């Protein structure tokens, strides 16, 4: 367990350090994820060394969204005053992205045949 956790937090630390040193706008945890993926692909890290711990984190991720989400209480006034742009954009953008992306990929695959 400690080995897996050390690897995961090690890559998180590396990602954060890189983001800070190079002043990147990409979140450090995303850089850590990309590095760990590369390390797995190149066999620097073995899947079985991190698999259990990583799956624990991924499986239980949804509870971690709650505390930041509750922060919404601080912005109640903003949401009320901007309800139409917020929800209008949310719904229309959802429809456009889903249908146009699906159509685009379908056309892309159709051409190949």
């Amino acid at each position, binding site marked *: 367990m400690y080995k897996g956790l050390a690897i*995961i937090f090690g*890559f*998180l630390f590396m990602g954060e350090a890189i983001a800070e040193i190079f002043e990147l*706008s*990409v*979140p450090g*945890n*995303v850089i*850590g*994820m*990309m590095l*760990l*993926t590369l390390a*797995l*692909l190149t066999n620097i890290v073995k899947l079985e060394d*991190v698999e259990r*711990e*990583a*799956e624990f*984190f*991924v499986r*239980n*991720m*949804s*509870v*971690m*969204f*709650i*505390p*930041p*989400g*509750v*922060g*919404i209480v601080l*912005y109640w006034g*903003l949401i009320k005053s*901007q309800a*139409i*742009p*917020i929800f*209008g*954009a*949310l719904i*229309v*953008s*959802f*429809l*456009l*992205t*889903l*249908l*146009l*992306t*699906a159509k*685009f*990929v*379908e056309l*892309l*695959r159709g051409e*190949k045949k």
Partner: protein
Amino acid sequence: MNSFGIFLTLAVFYLFSKFYEKRKVFYLNPVLLSIIVISLILKGFKISYDSYMESARFISFLLGPAVVSLAVPLYKQRHIVKTYAKEISVGVVFGGLLAIASAFYIAKWLGANLDVLLSIAPKSITTAIAIGVSEKIGGIPALTAVLVILTGILGNAVGVELLNLARIKDRVARGLAMGITSHGLGTARIILDDELSGAVSGLGMALNGIFTSLVLPYLIELLK
């Protein structure tokens, strides 16, 4: 009372996820219901968000290692990435940019202010990454978290029906569009439809999260 926020978060989430297991309907999404109920409890008992967050921060701190851990499912699906390399890469760029630009410009056209524009731009990527991206570009992470979850719920609720209505039959196209648009909640729904669509959807979600977090901070300067 150092543990109050942790206790409240875990207890409320536990109750709603038990409930969700029994009645799997999209609007009973346990994360969204937990956010609403905890917000109401804080309001009702006049507890400030800061004092709740003082201990609940421990839970959201785990998002860091959780995002890093997404490398494992990504690695495990590498054969699908290879098989559909072209459609996945072109699809993620197309869909990822479309999701950002359409949300940004429609909100702007409807009169949204900058805070809202920055918070809504990452709405199609997985919550964990969206929160970090929103923070980086100067949005409101809490608003982003809620909008992301709502986008996921939309995909979960009507995504498959919309794809059927639009007569999209290609399984790769269906899965990819769902993952890119509605991340985890969309993936959870389309996987019930078709296993290949589900696998491609999960990959679309992960790669769109990476793609968006790489381009959005720079793109947002152009969109502004």
